[in-house]
């Protein structure tokens, strides 16, 4: 247990690690060392976040490191460590490893702060800190026009929606006279309060690529390097869900109709994401749409404003993020077109079988992480009486098996892509993938103690 301000040690460590990585070319061994240092620091931060325990509201009530924040912070730091470990082994295209690791760690620091935010100002700053490095991660290759265009589109939409969110926040502040979540008093504020909450949620919907605001994701991901997508599409999502749980919990009592809004957005995301993913032939696009669909599943649990639902949603973001990141990392090694994975099973049987584990977890087949995650998501929606939503969730999960198994078929029965060079062995990258595969199983097996710790939060 860490007490007092020491509870923020993981965040301080991550940001310090980011600065060390930024100046990585001054270290012996240069970029590779920087990535290793980043991975080690992030792993240490994950351990500290997990062991650091929880506390009540701190720093004038602006942050609250509670159970949900603890779980999400641990997840973010651990995934960042995993990603940095892979980058240490394989490197980034164009060799900007140290900058990439530094950016990812800044984003992780912002995300970890975001999970604790109990104040609109903190939330805004942390959200920006967690998304701004993402634009650079996606568009850092100066000569790569599709990458730059994808990054610019992502940037313009993200900035537009964050200003809209800010406009909503200004109304929330104007109505309640305070920026603290705990003091948001929207009761009797009528339309203006609903408008404020809706505008604020628009910003979060766009960052989580939920249905009506999802269209940036496939384009942006398809242009960016797969390594960047592996980070950008997973880690910020954990932080986003955690802060959304907090915000919804703060306003759901005062503003009616939020259940309906969340349920409709969830349904639209599940339908659109899963159906649009079916014909995709680029893994990055496929995973972008799969991400939209998973946001839908997550919103299903956020809709009813129950602590069990919030716990289930935060648990599932991690259960989704691990396999999703690992799949993109394999795509970064093999190439992101589906045909690039042809006959992967005979070339790299271990990687192929790990892919099967991750894909199966994303579909939600026991005993993997995804199954228990979905079980709790559906359960919390059911207990709130959202039967139609759960039926839709189950049906779209069945549909999702269609495109995930297409990847599996390509790996086992596809044609070997012509003219591929044998991949250089990179032990650390393989280690990162192995950890991801084990974690996918372990989170599934250890689901009930993990969720028991989470379920009591935000009561």
């Amino acid at each position, binding site marked *: 247990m860490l007490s007092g301000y020491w509870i923020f040690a993981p965040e301080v460590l991550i940001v310090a690690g980011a*600065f060390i990585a*930024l*100046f990585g*070319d001054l270290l012996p061994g240069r970029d590779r060392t920087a990535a290793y240092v980043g991975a080690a620091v992030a792993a240490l931060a994950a351990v500290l976040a997990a062991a650091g325990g929880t506390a009540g509201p701190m720093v004038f009530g602006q942050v609250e490191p509670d159970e949900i924040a603890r779980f999400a912070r641990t997840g973010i730091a651990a995934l960042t460590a995993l990603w940095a470990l892979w980058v240490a082994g394989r490197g980034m295209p164009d060799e900007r490893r140290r900058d990439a690791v530094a950016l990812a760690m800044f984003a992780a620091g912002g995300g970890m702060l975001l999970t604790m935010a109990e104040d609109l100002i903190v939330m805004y700053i942390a959200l920006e800190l967690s998304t701004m490095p993402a634009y650079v991660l996606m568009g850092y290759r100066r000569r790569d026009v599709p990458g730059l265009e994808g990054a610019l589109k992502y940037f313009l939409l993200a900035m537009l929606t964050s200003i809209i969110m800010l406009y909503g926040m200004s109304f929330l502040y104007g109505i309640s006279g305070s920026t603290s979540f705990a003091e948001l008093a929207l009761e009797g*504020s*009528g*339309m*203006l309060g609903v*408008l404020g909450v809706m505008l604020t949620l628009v910003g979060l919907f766009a960052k989580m690529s939920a249905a009506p605001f999802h269209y940036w994701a496939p384009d942006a991901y398809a242009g960016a390097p797969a390594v960047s997508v592996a980070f950008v599409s997973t880690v910020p999502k954990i932080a986003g869900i955690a802060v959304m749980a907090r915000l919804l919990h703060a306003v759901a009592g005062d503003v009616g109709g939020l259940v309906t809004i969340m349920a409709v957005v969830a349904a639209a995301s599940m339908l659109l994401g899963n159906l649009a993913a079916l014909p995709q032939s680029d893994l990055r696009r496929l995973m972008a749409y799969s991400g939209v669909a998973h946001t839908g599943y997550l919103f299903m649990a956020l809709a009813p404003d129950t602590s069990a639902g919030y716990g289930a949603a935060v648990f599932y973001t991690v259960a989704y993020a691990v396999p999703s990141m690992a799949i993109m990392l394999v795509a970064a090694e093999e190439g992101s077109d589906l045909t690039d994975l042809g006959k992967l099973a005979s070339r790299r049987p271990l990687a192929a079988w790990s892919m099967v584990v991750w894909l199966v977890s994303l579909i939600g087949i026991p005993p993997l992480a995804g199954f228990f995650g979905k079980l709790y998501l559906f359960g919390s929606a059911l207990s709130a009486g959202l039967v139609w939503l759960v039926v839709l969730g189950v049906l779209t999960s069945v549909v999702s098996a269609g495109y995930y198994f297409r990847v599996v078929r390509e790996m086992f029965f596809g044609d070997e892509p012509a003219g591929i060079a044998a991949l250089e062995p990179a032990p650390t990258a393989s280690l990162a993938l192995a950890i991801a595969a084990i974690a996918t199983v372990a989170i599934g097996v250890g689901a009930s103690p993990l969720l028991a710790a989470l379920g009591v939060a935000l009561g």
Partner: protein
Amino acid sequence: MPHDYVVIGTFVLVGIIFVMITISTSNILSHQKPSEAKGLIYECGVEPIGAPWVQFHVGYYVYALLFVVFDIETVFLYPWAIVFSRMGMIVLVEMFIFVAVLLLGLAYAWKEGALRWR
């Protein structure tokens, strides 16, 4: 609350109408008689020399960007200066941390060669 609907409706309406009015007035009031002299670039009344789209040196841009970033960060010093006398040492330490982070940023820009004129 019907009153609130009226307020919001008015905001939205005024917003839309204002844009429509300004754009249409400029269309109605302006004479559309372009001549060669009118189409010229305005350079303090002197006849323009060369093409208007001169490419500025990229170095200016990098410097401008660095200047804007550091310039805008000083905005935090003003509220800090006001509360400083009341809050004591801890605030001083916090500001040193803030400035140290900024300096690290500057050091990074230096290391990457952004301060070298090319």
